[in-house]
């Protein structure tokens, strides 16, 4: 082999920058990181308020939920229609153990455990319930499993309604503690009123703090799930999804593997639940109804089942649709009508209720129409999963090397 072909690899070659940019996942993560960093700066500067940042923090827990459900539905192929139940369990774990609620319960003592500890407590609690639900039901397959999870999703909010001695029932749990930054992060300037990096960066006053927190949680979740996806367990999940009988014949214990999918998927929603409870500071059973499970499922399917970047984008798009675009439509329609000289449409007359009211009434039709349209245009999801290119390139390189070897032997 000539020396020219074996030139020393430059730093650029070694970092593989071009390859990485061409890899779609890396590109999407890059864009998401840039957007995540710029979003609060731009919106706060442009609107002078933090309303949009609060929206983004709320989109964050939907992203966490979608990442978790993707493990169950996208990787392992188990249709879970009761995912909100685990979210509720995580949220209530935090709400009860970090609020005055338990003082008015038979326990008579309020408990206030630190957020940073409880977020893992909620995670474990949700994982535990995932395993408890999974253990008797995972012998079921496909549609049957879906019905059981649907039942579980219905039962859990009812339990929180009816155990009102402990949970406050319909009155919800309020006054939930907010996280405190540990002193070592607040730094030596923490007691110093004059020293400010951004603005007073605290969870009590600043939505940006929650925004930063959720970005970190998402980053952690993405790293962990990606690791799992590219592991022995991730392959076992996919094998079960593709053909359970063949997977078992290859030595995969299908029951424990599915149980792990359920437990790990649930633990992410427990994570999200604790964060959610801390953010909104008020947890009621109404926040965890069937529609929540379905919305997360739509995020996963619409984003691209089985692909982590896909479900993140799917969750963001769906959040924008459901919680921003659609609720804002009537107002936007009204102001659009007035600005183009059709202000008369805004007045109600006879059967016509006025444009704003009419749009309000059509909300769900518009929402449904968008969903149908998106699924017709991209049935595989916005960013469908693909065979992992990087690893396959690795395989191709190995193959080439072996061909060279064989040639040398011959």
């Amino acid at each position, binding site marked *: 082999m000539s020396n020219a072909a074996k030139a020393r690899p430059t730093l650029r070659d070694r970092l593989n920058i071009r390859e990485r940019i061409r890899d779609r996942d890396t590109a999407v993560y890059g864009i998401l990181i840039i957007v995540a960093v710029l979003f609060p700066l731009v919106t706060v500067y442009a609107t002078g308020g933090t309303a949009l940042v609060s929206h983004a923090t709320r989109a964050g827990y939907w992203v966490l939920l979608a990442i978790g459900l993707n493990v169950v539905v996208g990787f392992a192929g188990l249709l879970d229609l009761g995912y909100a139940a685990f979210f509720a369990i995580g949220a209530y774990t935090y709400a009860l153990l970090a609020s005055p609620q338990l003082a008015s319960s038979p326990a008579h003592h309020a408990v206030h455990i630190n957020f940073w500890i409880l977020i893992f407590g909620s995670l474990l609690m949700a994982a535990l319930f995932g395993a408890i639900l999974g253990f008797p039901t995972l012998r079921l397959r496909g549609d049957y499993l879906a019905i059981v999870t649907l039942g579980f999703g219905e039962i859990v909010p009812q339990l929180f309604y009816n155990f009102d001695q402990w949970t406050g029932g319909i009155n919800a749990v309020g006054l939930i503690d907010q996280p405190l930054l540990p002193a070592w992060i607040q730094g030596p300037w923490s007691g110093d009123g004059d020293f400010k990096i951004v603005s007073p960066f605290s969870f009590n006053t600043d939505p940006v703090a929650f925004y930063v927190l959720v970005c970190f949680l998402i980053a952690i979740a993405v790293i962990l799930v990606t*690791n799992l996806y*590219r592991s022995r367990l991730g*392959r076992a999940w996919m*094998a079960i999804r593709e053909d359970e009988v063949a997977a078992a014949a290859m030595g995969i*214990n299908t029951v424990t593997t599915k149980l792990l999918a359920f437990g790990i998927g649930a633990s992410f929603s427990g994570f999200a639940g604790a964060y959610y409870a801390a953010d909104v500071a008020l947890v009621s059973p109404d926040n965890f109804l069937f529609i929540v499970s379905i919305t997360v499922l739509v995020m996963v399917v619409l984003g691209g089942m089985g692909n982590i970047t896909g479900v993140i984008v799917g969750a963001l798009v769906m959040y924008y649709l459901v919680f921003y675009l659609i609720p804002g439509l009537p107002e936007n329609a009204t102001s659009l009508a007035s600005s183009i000289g059709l202000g008369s449409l805004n007045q109600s007359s006879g059967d016509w209720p006025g444009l704003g009211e009419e749009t309000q009434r059509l909300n769900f039709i518009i929402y449904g129409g968008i969903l149908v349209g998106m699924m017709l245009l991209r049935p595989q999801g916005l960013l469908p999963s693909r065979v992992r290119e990087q690893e396959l390139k690795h395989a*191709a390189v190995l193959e080439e090397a*072996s061909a060279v070897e064989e040639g040398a032997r011959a």
Partner: protein
Amino acid sequence: MRRSWRKHLRSRRERVPESTENILELTNLTKRFGGLVAVDNVSLHIKRGEVFALIGPNGAGKTTLFNNVTGLFTPTAGRVVFDGRDITGSKPHQVARLGIARTFQNIRLFDYMSCLDNVRVGRHVRMKAKVWDSLFKLPWERREEERVTEEAMELLRFVGIAKHANQYARNLAYGQQRRLEIARALATDPKLLLLDEPAAGFTPQEKVELMQLVKKILSRGITVFLIEHDMKVVMGISERIVVLDHGEKIAEGPPDEVRKDVKVIEAYLGKSA
């Protein structure tokens, strides 16, 4: 008390294997589905390192027998002893761990996974990584992944489809899919390989290649137990044959004897022939 008894049992079981000459022994194996007797009181034994064939007309219970051995079905009666160990009623994944791998009559690959991943799934039972190791990508988990990737590539080369490593399994040609299934089964490091009609739908050329492949597998020290319809293949590679008809064993012996057996000829061609 109880624990020591278990230990005793286990140690007894573990002592046996190396001394057994037969890798698989079926004793009076019976499988009923309601009123239908699919496998009827079949006994047979397979010696280490041989190629053993199971033949018989359609519906004779050949695949059902395979399923009873690999744990997909639990036998109604009788015993399955593998490598000196009673595995009657074990779960499929336990059977695979002990060292029996199989392919399926109607190919059952993981369609939307790459060929490489299909084979790496086969390696699953011989891997040690636990959830925590994978979650945090511990260095030794990384090394195990690399090693398994190389082993999987080696197996793909062994069956001759390495250049398709990065394609979805479903995109392979039919014959390549059969080979991939064999590679996936070999990845579990089996002592006994069960092939369910591996030559079905093959061209004569492909059949010759398959027979060469089986010989290569044999030279790795793996015993082969196959179901096959094609007499050329069966006669060409197997040392002993058992013939099933209506779930019953009607003949057993080396190919030349079985071919001349009156009962076998009747079963295949009907009485008038």
